[in-house]
């Protein structure tokens, strides 16, 4: 089977996740949240992982940092970061990597910032911890970082607590923390979902600008196809714990290959285009997958307009042309995207 991780031309990618599987113990038995996921990220690149609830996108991200809670376990695979397998490290080594070479930004800045520590302490902490700086230096660097994320009167706000900050400012502080040690890789899990649209746009533009400046790679986890289109270089689409398609953002939007991707693209209302005459949106029929009761074979088959007998077998993620991978038995003729989305409409 071809792994998406092998796709890079020349040189090993910064992050190369191979055949990762993660499961959780639940009331309804063992649930496989991530099932044989392979993906890679090049230095300085923005990879978006897109999917709906239960697709495994967040679990994949948390697994890279080995932050899965006690109910979950990583059952197999490799996570090669700069050539070393993170799954072989002990906890102390992982602690040294987190916040230093790989940083994470979470969705809820209120719950991921410590409410009883000042902003200065929290932004300065990774510098003190990983760079061995004394607090005075750490504070100076924290003020500099807060300035870079455009918090007005940065040094004056080091003594503020998170509740003094607005939602957008808290997320700016989170970005400052993430950038503190110039990480090679930043993982941002729905970083702006909790924010208003105008603030979301500011934060994402800032994140993109600063990661580009630092030449950090960015994994952007989101359900918002607009955000992906604006900020991602490459996209991995996940469904029911598996990667179903990867491509460059342009190629994916111009011509989605997997029927799930095509259905998703067709079902979102947009700001341009004609509304009149088509007040019905194309839909993907059925319900989101139940991870505790997945069908054998392709998990999307029960909702897929193209499903046929072969779909009872799990489709491997295969390269369909240079740089493009799709996990689907159905091979649409040319003009695929249109065909796929039109047949979606018929089904609905």
């Amino acid at each position, binding site marked *: 089977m071809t792994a998406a991780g092998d796709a890079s031309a020349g040189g090993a990618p910064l992050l190369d996740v191979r055949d990762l599987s993660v499961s959780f113990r639940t009331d309804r038995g063992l649930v496989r949240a991530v099932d044989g996921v392979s993906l890679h990220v090049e230095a300085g690149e923005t990879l978006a992982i897109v999917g709906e*609830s239960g697709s495994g996108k967040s679990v994949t991200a948390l697994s890279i940092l080995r932050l899965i809670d006690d109910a979950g376990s990583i059952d197999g695979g490799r996570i090669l970061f700069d050539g070393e397998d993170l799954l072989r490290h002990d906890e102390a080594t992982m602690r040294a990597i987190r916040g230093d070479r790989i940083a994470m930004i979470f969705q809820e800045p209120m719950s991921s910032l410590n409410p009883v520590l000042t902003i200065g302490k929290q932004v300065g902490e990774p510098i003190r911890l990983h760079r061995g700086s004394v607090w005075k230096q750490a504070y100076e660097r924290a003020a500099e970082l807060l300035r870079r994320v455009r918090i007005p009167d940065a040094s004056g706000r080091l003594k503020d607590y998170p509740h003094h900050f607005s939602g957008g400012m808290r997320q700016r502080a989170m970005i400052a923390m993430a950038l503190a040690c110039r990480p090679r890789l930043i993982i941002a899990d729905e970083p702006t979902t909790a924010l208003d649209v*105008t603030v979301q746009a500011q934060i994402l*533009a800032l994140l993109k600008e600063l990661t580009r400046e630092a030449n950090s790679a960015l994994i952007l986890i989101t359900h918002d196809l*607009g955000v992906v289109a604006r900020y991602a270089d490459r996209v991995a689409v996940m469904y029911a714990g598996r990667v179903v398609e990867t491509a460059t953002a342009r190629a994916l939007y111009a011509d989605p290959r997997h029927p799930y991707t095509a259905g998703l693209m067709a079902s979102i209302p*947009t700001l341009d285009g004609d509304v009149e005459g088509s007040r019905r949106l194309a839909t993907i029929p059925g*319900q989101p997958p139940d991870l505790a009761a997945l069908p054998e074979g392709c998990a999307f088959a029960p909702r897929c307009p193209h499903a046929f007998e072969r779909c009872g077998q799990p489709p491997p993620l295969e390269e369909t042309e240079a740089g493009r991978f799709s996990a689907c038995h159905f091979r649409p003729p040319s003009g695929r995207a249109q065909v796929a989305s039109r047949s979606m409409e018929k089904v609905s």
Partner: protein
Amino acid sequence: MTDALLQVQDLKVHFPVREGLLQREAGSVKAVDGVSFELRRGETFGLVGESGCGKSTTALAVLRMIEPTAGRIVFEGEDVTEHTAAGMRTIRRRMQMVYQDPFGALNPRMKVQDIIGEPLVVHGLAKDRSAWRARISELMDLVGLLPDMADRYPHEFSGGQRQRIGIARALALEPSLVICDEPVSALDVSIQAQVINLLVELQERLGLTYLFIAHDLSVVRHISDRIGVMYLGRIVEVADRDTLFKNPRHPYTQALLNAVPLPDPELESRRPENLIAGEVPSVRNPPPGCRFHPRCPKVMEVCSQEVPILHGEEATGQVACHLHPPGD
């Protein structure tokens, strides 16, 4: 307008702020501060804006689930604000609400039939048990749920199905107005489209009028005939859908539209990044004059001094901005 189902005139909702040991009234939060709009029979009026703009408070005030501080709310020819609690009960049969959170809005201990059928019992509309059950089956069928699932509990349903249960309950009393407060924002993308289509279909079949409140501009654009844009307790612009999206006049409307990323990398790469700075200020202490002026890229001297009035013809759109003075 003769075909107006609902007229909201100069609606104000102010919440007192209490401070100190004796909890003295120290001021007020003007959550909704002089909002006027009209809903025509059978149309969908979208109300958009960011957090704190007062869109949900406006909805709750129309239903009088929050007491308005001032203003008139005329629904089917009657001034809702003049009614007693008992009078409101009759009126609420005609206006119902669909909530955002399909998980929190349904009582987990009630069977689906009791959730959907409760309004019928409360208003004494079911002759007997078999008529009641028949009506529930009819409602479930109407929203695309299998009637034989009536005995189940909410947790056995997915998010999209739960939202269908909420819609069935709202339709039980055959309302003319349905207020939808962020009805799809908690749902997955692929499920959103199903629920939007259901709402459109129900409107066509039952002749419903919707007040559709949401922060997602693409969803609002898709479903609405006319749209009002709110900022910090006031309406800044009202226009029909195409006018608003093709030719937004208020700088805040323009900023909102610019901020929404389009699901097309090709278009996005050619789009100038034209973002406004700052965040929505606290409603507790709103800026004087035009409330948007501290963030406005086209701010003028007058903007911090005078409140711009919403003016203009219903047909061509209304705007509250000193760049577009009356008679312009």
